[in-house]
């Protein structure tokens, strides 16, 4: 589930461009990278937990692939939302086929317009936000507190985000955070060279951002990346 944000920022749009131009390697890389996303999208439509063996997973992966080919970049639409929507449509088609046992392909050539994608994205994001808030509450943090403790200055924020990234990417540190509900400042300090005060002052913010980085919040993450 872990996705390195650094890497993402630099390479996703590049990979996407290459994949759309027919670069198979880039397509493979994106598929691998977004497999957790595809799994989560599929399981959400089905409303149950899934494993790699389920047929629906391959439908989802195919849909993602299809999205790679069909996506036309625009300023307002995110690829992730587009892909999410394609996955859902294909799965719904698949389920219908299963039920009716007849080829019903009406939606296959249906064009997806921007409003659809945007709305889909917003709805997906709303789900994520609700889960995110619940997870924050597990740390005893309210969303207002995050807003109140959010570093205003860009450089301070970037430092805090860097700390959050370290938290999210190190399994043992993250396990500690989850168990104790607070940040192991000395370990983080050692790992990042960040000042202890930076970490202490922005504790709430760092936890919130680390949750987004680490948790199943594809759309929120996607929003932050661009």
């Amino acid at each position, binding site marked *: 589930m872990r996705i390195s944000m650094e890497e993402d920022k630099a390479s996703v749009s590049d990979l996407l461009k290459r994949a759309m131009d027919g670069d198979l390697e880039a397509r493979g890389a994106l598929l691998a990278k977004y497999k957790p996303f595809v799994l989560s999208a599929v399981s959400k439509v089905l409303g149950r937990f899934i494993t790699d063996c389920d047929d629906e997973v391959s439908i989802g992966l195919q849909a993602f692939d299809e999205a790679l080919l069909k996506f036309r970049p625009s300023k307002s639409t995110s690829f992730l939302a587009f892909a999410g929507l394609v996955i859902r449509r294909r799965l719904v088609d698949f389920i219908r086929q299963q039920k009716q046992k007849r080829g019903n392909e009406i939606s296959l050539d249906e064009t997806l317009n921007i409003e659809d994608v945007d709305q889909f994205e*917003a709805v997906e994001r709303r789900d994520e*936000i*609700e889960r995110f808030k619940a997870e924050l509450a597990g740390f005893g943090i309210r969303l207002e507190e995050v807003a109140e403790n*959010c570093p205003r200055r860009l450089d301070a924020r970037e430092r805090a985000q860097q700390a959050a990234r370290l938290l999210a990417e190190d399994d043992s540190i993250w396990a500690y955070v989850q168990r104790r509900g607070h940040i192991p400042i000395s370990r983080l300090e050692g790992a990042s060279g960040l000042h202890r005060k930076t970490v202490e002052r922005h504790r709430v913010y760092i936890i919130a951002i680390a949750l987004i980085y680490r948790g199943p919040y594809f759309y*929120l993450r996607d929003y*932050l990346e*661009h």
Partner: protein
Amino acid sequence: MVSKKGVLMQVSGNTGVVLTRNGQFRKVRLIGEGPYEVGYEVEYQESLVTLSTVALVAAACLAVVVLSWSVLTSFRPGLLQGRVLAYVSVDINPSVQLGVDERHIVCSAEGLNEDGRALLAQVPTSGRKLHDAVLDLVSAAVKAGYMSHGQENAILIASVPGEGDSVPEPLLANISSIKRDVERELNSRSISAVVESVSGGSELRTKARELNISPGRMALALKALSEGAELSEDQVRRGLLGQIAGGIERLKGFKLGDSKPKQIDELLKQFEGKKLKFQSSSTPAAEQVGSESSDDRRGERENLGKEHVETHPAGGKPSNAKPSETKIKDSRASDSNGSHSQGQQRNDEGRKANGRGENSKR
């Protein structure tokens, strides 16, 4: 007021919490058409403060008051001047002393030597924040060539209370941050300098004023004397800071900033009984008052040069010998080595000024 966009995370009425693309969580006022739904990207206003008309009017009134206050204080520093909280002296070699009020705003400024006065004429200080004033003074001093790359530069920032026994803690904290910023400023111009700060008590204030020496030099001299150095009045008045300390390295070693104001005052008392060198020879300086003709000055400069060199043999260590004719002759030879001649020149100019007996309380 700029409107920005973010994903709405939580909403109540027309305020909400948004997450922006650059990772800010903000509590904001939402603009644009409702209803607002969580998950959508929304526009918001920069500030959550609801600026009703009343508040706007209040803000405007406040602005007028603040504006007129700052205008008044900048043109007539004395007019609204509160009591002087503390005096902060800056010795670069132009030496200046700034009086600050409880808001750490400069409310009086005086040059403690000719160079100091010239510097103050260039740099506006009254009505400004102490921090900004000091940094500008340092910048101007660099521009004027008082400090440069490759030289042994030193800056001493000293504070003494205006009233009461000691300088309040917040001001000391401010001064140490000023000190850091001065260091940074000099670093950025790749000028190496020892920047020290020191704080004294009321005793130091009184004594420094009495002798018309900057509290910084006074404290430094006391510290040096307590470590066994012997200093002449001229050295204390006009010597380079590094030389008073007996070398630029020792100046750092003194850790003046660490000494408690009480310690400095104690030192002062300790020396009170004994006759301080620089006290005993203070009379000639006083006699300089009024001797303004250029001839006199020239004579004075020459004279000074000798004295000055006498106290600083080539190594820069304080001389253990008392001033004497022979000594002067000896060291004149070392003068031709020229190691300190630049410093001398500059220091000399301050001499006449110091004799005048300035008083900053105007």
